[in-house]
């Protein structure tokens, strides 16, 4: 065979292989099976998770195995940092995924729209319990036909943590702050009297932009899939952040560790953050016990909610799962059970998205770290008020654009409206969507 002959043959062979073997776009995922969760399901399942979520699942898995003969539940910690690579490759390849995976809520819609046949319909498991779950999480985990595919697990209900000592030293009554503008004035006073900044934020990662946007019931997209990053509400948030930074009220801390350091160092008077910040404060800064309290977020106007969401995860069953029925049964055990959800709060710091669990005793206790305030009850009352927003599959592209916009407008000199218009344009170009309004 001539050299050219060999080359040609190789290319033809490769091409043939490619055409027959490949499944672009993950269409090779399993057929839609109907889940039948039942306490009698047996066999083995594998679950992927990370961090404390994995710890919680391992603990509950043992309990389940003890009470259900013939079941084996293998929880694998795949690490958080590159977990989505593993999940994405598995979905794209149509194979390689376990019986259950953990997903953060803000990834739900992205996967749902790219892999419409990738996840099992969880309606047979939780269908009648919609009212018992955090409404924002339920919506985020449902596909466009309203079928739940990612079950809510823990909520990232947002409140405003504040240093009671700073406020009293500055002579400000925290209860008098109703709006963000009130907070800014308070911040100026605190800065003048105590030299402390108002809040700590990670401005190079967008800061609390999306949190404050969600407070106003808005996401980066609307229900029609149009881009909403340059609406008046969004501009209001950006202007607020810019003003705060201009007045020297923001401490810019990049990354998790820097935020923790900032809290330990007592830099700022308030921290708008999700409920899991309780665990962080108590774990990393025990020396500040008694100096903190929590209240709801200041409002923009009458329409805004006193809370928002930051973080939290859910569980899903890929259609590739080998033992979906046992997976479904275990999922119900973990998520829709008062005692189990409460135990996950107690042991792993996961705040339940299952609302009935919030009524149990654990959540009624006063917390000495917060001067005896019943913080869990407080967040529990806020959770049903979290506004639902639309994510879409282009969430990460939008997120990137917003991060840049915050950098330009808040850290730089760009006008907020212009920065957001640019971001909207960028997202439109990258995704082909229309800009709303």
């Amino acid at each position, binding site marked *: 065979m*001539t*050299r050219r002959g*060999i*080359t040609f043959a*190789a290319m033809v062979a490769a091409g043939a292989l490619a055409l027959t*073997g*490949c*499944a672009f776009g993950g269409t090779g995922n399993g057929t839609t099976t109907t889940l039948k969760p039942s306490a009698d399901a047996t066999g083995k399942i*594998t679950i*992927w998770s*990370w*961090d*404390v*979520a994995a710890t919680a699942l391992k603990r509950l898995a043992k309990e389940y195995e003890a009470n259900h003969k013939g079941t084996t539940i293998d929880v*694998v*910690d*795949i*690490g*958080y*940092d*590159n977990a989505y*690579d*593993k999940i994405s*490759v*598995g979905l*794209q*390849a*149509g*194979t*390689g995924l*376990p019986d259950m995976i953990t997903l*953060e809520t803000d990834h739900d819609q992205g996967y749902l729209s790219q892999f419409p046949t990738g996840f099992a319909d969880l309606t047979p498991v939780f269908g009648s319990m919609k009212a018992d779950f955090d409404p924002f999480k339920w919506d985020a985990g449902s596909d466009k036909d309203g079928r739940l595919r990612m079950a809510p697990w823990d909520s990232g209900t947002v409140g405003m943590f504040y240093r009671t000592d700073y406020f009293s030293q500055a002579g400000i009554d925290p209860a008098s702050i109703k709006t963000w503008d009130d907070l800014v004035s308070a911040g100026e006073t605190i800065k003048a009297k105590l030299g402390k900044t108002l809040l700590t934020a990670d401005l190079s990662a967008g800061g609390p932009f999306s949190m404050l946007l969600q407070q106003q019931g808005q996401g980066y997209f609307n229900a029609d899939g149009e881009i909403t990053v340059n609406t008046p509400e969004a501009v209001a948030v950006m202007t607020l952040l810019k003003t705060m930074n201009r007045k020297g009220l923001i401490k810019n801390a990049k990354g*998790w*560790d820097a935020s*923790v*350091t900032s809290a*330990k*160092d007592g830099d700022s008077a308030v921290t708008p953050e999700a409920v*899991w910040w309780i665990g*962080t404060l108590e*774990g*990393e800064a025990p020396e500040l016990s008694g100096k903190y309290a929590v209240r709801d977020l200041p409002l923009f106007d009458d329409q805004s909610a006193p809370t928002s969401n930051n973080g939290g995860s859910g569980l899903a069953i890929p259609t590739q799962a080998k033992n979906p029925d046992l997976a479904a049964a275990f999922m119900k055990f973990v998520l829709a059970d008062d005692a189990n959800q409460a135990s996950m709060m107690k042991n792993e710091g996961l705040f339940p998205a299952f609302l009935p669990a919030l009524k149990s005793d654990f959540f009624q206790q006063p917390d000495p770290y917060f001067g005896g305030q019943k913080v869990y009850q407080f967040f529990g009352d806020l959770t049903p008020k979290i506004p639902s927003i639309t994510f879409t599959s282009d969430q990460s592209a939008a997120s990137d654009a917003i991060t840049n916009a915050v950098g330009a407008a808040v850290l730089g000199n760009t006008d907020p409206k212009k920065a957001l218009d640019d971001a909207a344009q960028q997202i439109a170009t990258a995704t082909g969507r229309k800009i709303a309004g």
Partner: protein
Amino acid sequence: MATELIVTGRAHRRGIPSRARREPLLRRIVLRSPVYLVLVIASILSLIPFAWMVIASTHKTSDLFVTPLPILPGGEFWQNLGRLQESVGFGQVMLNSVLVAVLYTVFSSIISVMCGYGLATYRFRGRGVLMGIILVTMMIPMQVLLVPLFQMMASAGWIDSYQALIIPFLANAFGIFLMRQGFLDFPTTLIEAARIDGASELRTFYRIVLPVARPQIAALIIYTFISQWNSFIWPLLMLNSEDKYTIPVALNTMIGLSRVDYSGLMLGSLLATLPLFILFLVFQKQFVAGLLGGAVKG
């Protein structure tokens, strides 16, 4: 004038000959201390991150982020070690890494050496095409090859196995390239002599060429071992059982959603460096000589 220079494994005269024997002591100190200063500064820069790793390994994570930073090692070494073992089973993980790296290095080196030799010494049909494919494999970003390779592993039923880590990459483009460069200047007189004596190509290769090329092969072995030892993305995608994890994958699980167990992570990373450290120490002479041979080609 084309000069042929022979470098022996043990150079009897290294570097620029010193005129310093006749120079007075003071002059020597004045001239030489800047040089040592530069070297020491460079070494410090090189070691600063390691210093932090040592400090982190011997403290509690929560103590690491205060101002001012602790600068001396703390006393938490054993606790961190215990936690490392408890949370990721580090002992088993180290053994896993050793197993995979050794197997990979042995087989991959054999293949690279053979292929490099073949490419360098003979001109056969398809040689150009093969070189082309090898170069493209080096130049294409691995990220776009992940999904198709993953599908192949899944079809073969190799997910969560060590075959999947080792076999697909046995033909290591860089290793082949390195060996080819190394063999390009091989003294053909030796090969000719063996041929005249009637030895077969294979025997020539085995008996004559390999022993002479030992330094290059040592270099290849070290390079191959290091690249497999630190390999991260592919084992992450392939391995689904925690007791099969290799070191980078296990360490990665210590980077949590919001919390990072820095002390454990740094301790694990330091321990992971030890085998490589020892390997380099043992092979140092070979490595240096080998790289020299491999690289000093056009």
